[in-house]
């Protein structure tokens, strides 16, 4: 790489960004006292930052372009994680360690840590649910949080009016989620990708606005308080033990979810989803019922959101519409995209990274959404597959003489 032109390009980029961010970064108007605050230091930061970032950006872009040209060993590199996972000698001890760690986690860490972990695990559930809709079926759903809200309010309201417990509410929440998924699914069946995104977004906002404004039904913006935590065989637990208990419940549900989603992926429905994602017309030509497959995806995706909602309500004991804004949907989408669309391991690690990191990097917490935005762009440009990209099954005829069956590669 030639040094001088690169330097010049970076310098121009840095000047451009200094110009671009000048009014918003440098000037702050205090409209009450009519004082203008000049923050020249910010300009210096932007200049230096964009100088190096533009260098990095061009370096990565050129590397990406080179990667496109020589795609030969690409397959080996992208599937590093998945190859590790295929390695039986490594995976069994690792899984055992992980299992022990998850089981003793609430006993070695404080209630606060456990509570954060529960939040992260709820997002794992949400991510896995959304993964069905976005990752497998390729339907961009920006209103996913609506089903989450449906689950949470189902538990809150059923408990308030009829005194239903957590374990009764869990299947009810899941069923209501699925029902709403189908309700949303019907009108949008005919829509193409981007229209679908907007309609689902609108649907999510409608649900939130209704919850916010219909005071008689949902108690409006003040929400529902005093939702009971799950009781342990009829015993009411102290907060500390209830947290541990919820932790185990969530771990249980997550494991079940992972197993079910993993099985679904390889099932007839899962294959149909992937076919639908790849090419709708070809998929219909193969005799797959498009409408039913899409509805399946919506309903199954929403089921997990409904369940996660019930767990969320039980964990926080208080819900209001502010927890179910569009940004929540987008954070869940971030999890799926960052982790790797369609890959279960990816979504789990994506959820843990995106939810746990901001909790422990408190100093940066206000930059959280800014960084999320940057991550979305960055991932789409440089690594559209996510951290752990979904491995496509490749069937190849080795040699017909050796074996009649096509061998499976990953």
């Amino acid at each position, binding site marked *: 790489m030639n040094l001088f032109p690169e330097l010049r390009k970076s310098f121009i980029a840095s000047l451009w960004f200094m110009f671009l961010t000048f009014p918003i970064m440098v000037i702050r108007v205090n409209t009450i006292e009519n004082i203008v605050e000049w923050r020249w230091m910010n300009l210096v930061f932007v200049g230096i930052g964009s100088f190096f970032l533009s260098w990095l950006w061009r370096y990565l872009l050129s590397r990406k372009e080179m990667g496109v040209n020589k795609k030969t060993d690409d397959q080996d590199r992208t599937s590093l994680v998945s190859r590790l996972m295929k390695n039986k000698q490594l995976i069994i001890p690792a899984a055992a360690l992980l299992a022990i760690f998850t089981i003793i986690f609430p006993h070695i860490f404080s209630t606060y840590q456990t509570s954060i972990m529960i939040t992260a695990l709820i997002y794992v559930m949400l991510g896995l649910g959304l993964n069905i809709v976005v990752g497998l079926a390729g339907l961009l759903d920006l209103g996913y949080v609506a089903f989450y809200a449906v689950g949470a309010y189902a538990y809150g309201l059923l408990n308030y009016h009829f005194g239903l417990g957590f374990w009764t509410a869990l299947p009810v929440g899941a069923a209501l989620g699925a029902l709403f998924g189908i309700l949303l699914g019907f009108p949008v069946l005919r829509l193409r990708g981007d229209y679908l995104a*907007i309609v689902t977004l609108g649907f999510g906002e409608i649900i939130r606005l209704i919850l916010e*404004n219909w005071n008689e039904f949902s108690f409006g913006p003040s929400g529902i308080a005093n939702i009971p935590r799950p009781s342990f065989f009829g015993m009411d637990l102290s907060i500390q033990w209830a947290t541990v208990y919820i932790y185990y419940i969530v771990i249980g549900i997550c494991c079940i979810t992972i197993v079910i989603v993993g099985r679904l992926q390889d099932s007839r429905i899962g294959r149909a989803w992937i076919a639908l994602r790849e090419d709708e017309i070809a998929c219909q030509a193969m005799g797959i019922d498009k409408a039913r497959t899409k509805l399946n995806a919506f309903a199954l995706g929403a089921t997990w959101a409904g369940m996660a909602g019930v767990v969320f309500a039980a964990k926080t004991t208080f819900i209001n519409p502010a927890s179910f804004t569009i940004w929540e949907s987008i954070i869940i989408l971030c999890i799926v995209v960052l982790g790797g669309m369609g890959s279960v391991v990816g979504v789990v690690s994506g959820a843990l990274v995106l939810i746990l990191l901001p909790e422990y990097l408190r100093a940066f917490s206000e930059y959280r959404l800014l960084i999320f935005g940057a991550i979305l762009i960055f991932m789409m440009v440089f690594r559209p597959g996510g951290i752990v990209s979904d491995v496509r099954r490749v069937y190849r005829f080795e040699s017909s003489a050796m074996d009649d069956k096509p061998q499976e590669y990953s």
Partner: protein
Amino acid sequence: MNYFLEIFLGGLTRGSIYALIALGYTMVYGIIELINFAHGEIYMIGAFTALIVASVLTLLGFNTLSVFILALVLAVIYSCCYAFTMEKIAYKPLRQAPRLSALISAIGMSLFLQNYVLLAQTSDFLPFPRLIPDFDFMEPYAHIITTQEAVILITTAIFMTILTIFIKFTRMGKAMRATSQDKVMAALTGIDVNRVISFTFIVGAAAAAVGGVLIASHIGMINFYIGFIAGIKAFVAAVLGGIGSIPGAVLGSFVLGWTESFCTGYVSSDYEDVFAFLFLVLILIFRPAGILGRSESNKV
């Protein structure tokens, strides 16, 4: 009758602001088939730039008219620059990628720009100075239409006319139409497609900035979140009219503006946004291509 007329004109004003924003969506969609999710943010940045410039100039002692003109011009320039940069960073590397990738990248851009303004400025609502003075000759009609609304209507009409002429009769307009019909063929005839795409983003941003300044001085308050809701509504308007079609976007915007005005005027103001979204869902169910859009059949 006066109440009706007031609501009607209120809806028209609302509609013309949506139209200015919707233009950006519909033009970008027409050319690269991307929902530019971050377009609402451009509108918000336009309004913020205007606010900052106007405040600084007012403190320096400029008179109202020059403050208004300078704020508007700078807002348009900065919005255009932001849109240009945005396209280069978030969309250009994804030209060949699946459409879902570009859409997610656009969502990321929207999130980034919102939080950038939130962190660099403030999360509070800022009072926006009244840049448009009340004219005396409008006084008798003040109970029906305010000066602000009249200015918004007239500016929108002028902008739309210029845009129509531009697209119909100039070289660049012709190149834009060609690119939206067939990108490869346009490139073969010697059109610099990348330049046309950049240019489309810039024109859309200019319209959004004008809309941003006008509506902000009409309502008198802005914060970092205004772009999002306005953007979504404008997108709804563009879809209503048939996305990709410019007259469609304008028509859809007016329809949406009236729907909202009449529903809030005669039914309930709590559910203003719900009406907009319900309307969108209904239109898409019964006429997925929009009012003026042509339905495309998939070719294999």
